[in-house]
Structure formats: structure tokens, C-alpha cells
């Protein structure tokens, strides 16, 4: 399986990544993309920015391990993950997962697996900076743990 993992501050381009991945995807019939955007209104006070940090080297290696787990479970031809760090304004894309696979069921399952795992296990930390000047580090969500847990049955 072709697998390319990047953690970066820069924005990414879904269309360009899709074209690049298809060049590595052989006769794949299905491509699933997930893109996450920063939400402004999850809390009572609107968000000014989301600040993310990661553990360079460790984070990339963990994501690769997770992607290889997904490829062992479903027939995946190629995989691309980009996760942004630093300060991100509401509406900005923060994470991209692209999966190319022979058929749609495997592509959907692998993309969802990777996203569930990224949200619960990959070493990222988020701080919410609000428009009123307050800020706080996000705590781990129980719902994300639950979403990930269903793969471990």
C-alpha cells in the first residue's frame, strides 16, 4: 500500500491531493475523502481560533501505524493523511484523509476507521481561543472514545 502522512501548518488542497493519490492507486474503483473543518460554534462563546500542537516524529509514526492497521483490515490501494497544526481560524480545513480502494465498502470503512482513530489516539492537542480572549485546552471527548471503541470488539 502506498501511504503518505504529513503534519504541517500550511493549508492543503483536496483536489490536488486527490489527483496525486490516484496516480498511486492502480485500478482502484473507489476514492473516499474526509475533510474536517474548524467549527466556530461548538461552545457558547464563538471560537476565534483553534491552536493545535503535535509531537513531531511520534505523531507521524502513529498515524502510519494506524493506516497500516486499516490496510490490513480492508483492501486499500493508497492512503494520504494531512493534519494541520498551529493556529487555525473557524472554517479552515484541519485534517484530510484520502483512501483509494478497489471497492467502496473498503474505502468508506478504512477512512472512517482512520478518522475515529485519529480523533482518539493520535498525539494532537487542541487549545480553543475564544473571541472574548479566554482560552482553554480541549479535554478528550467520551464520544470519540466510544466511536473508536467499536473497532476493538
Amino acid at each position, binding site marked *: 500500500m502506498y501511504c503518505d502522512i504529513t503534519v504541517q501548518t500550511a493549508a492543503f488542497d483536496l483536489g490536488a491531493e486527490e489527483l496525486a493519490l490516484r496516480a498511486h492507486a492502480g485500478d482502484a474503483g473507489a476514492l473516499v475523502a474526509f475533510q*474536517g473543518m474548524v467549527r466556530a460554534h461548538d461552545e457558547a462563546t464563538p471560537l476565534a481560533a483553534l491552536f*493545535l*500542537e*503535535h*509531537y513531531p*516524529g*511520534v505523531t507521524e*509514526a*502513529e498515524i502510519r501505524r494506524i493506516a497500516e492497521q486499516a490496510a490490513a483490515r480492508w483492501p486499500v490501494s493508497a492512503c494520504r493523511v494531512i*493534519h494541520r497544526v498551529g493556529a487555525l481560524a473557524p472554517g479552515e480545513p*484541519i*485534517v484530510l484523509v484520502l483512501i483509494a480502494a478497489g471497492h467502496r465498502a473498503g474505502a468508506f470503512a478504512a477512512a472512517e476507521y482512520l*478518522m475515529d482513530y*485519529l*480523533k*482518539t*489516539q*493520535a*498525539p*494532537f*492537542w*487542541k*487549545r480553543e481561543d475564544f473571541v472574548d480572549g479566554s482560552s482553554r*485546552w*480541549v*479535554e*478528550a*471527548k467520551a464520544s*470519540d472514545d466510544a466511536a473508536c471503541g467499536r473497532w476493538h470488539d
Partner: protein
Amino acid sequence: MSITLLYFGVLKDTLGCSTETLAWDGGTTATLLDVLRGRGEEWALALAPGKVFRLVVNQQIVRGDAAIPDGAEVGILPPVTGG
């Protein structure tokens, strides 16, 4: 002999520290946590057994007690909130 400690996320703010060099006579991750918890109430609370998510020694996530060699980089990771 020394090791480098890296703190992430909320721990940076709680402990007022993002990176430090610590004199190190050898030992394990349990030894290190004892040293850090001994620094005061805030450290003891932030690094209480139920709170610490993971320790990473030389870029390898460790589970249970693990040796920390001289010159090691040790990451102290609170629960992750990524994605």
C-alpha cells in the same frame, strides 16, 4: 548524565514548562514520575497515575515501567484531543 523532557498540550500551561533538561542518574519511567511528582502539589496532581496519558522514550511510546537511558528524550503526553 541528563535527559530531555518535553511537555505537551495542557501540561505546558499547568506545569509552566515546555522543555527542560534534567540531571539523570539512571532509572525507569517510574523513577522519573516519582521525581516529578515530588516537585509539589501541582506536579503531583497533573502527573497523578490516573491522569498521565502516555510517556514516550526516544520517540517510542512505552507501556508500563520502562528504562530511560542517559541522553534520552522523554515526552510527557496528556490525553490526546486531535483530529
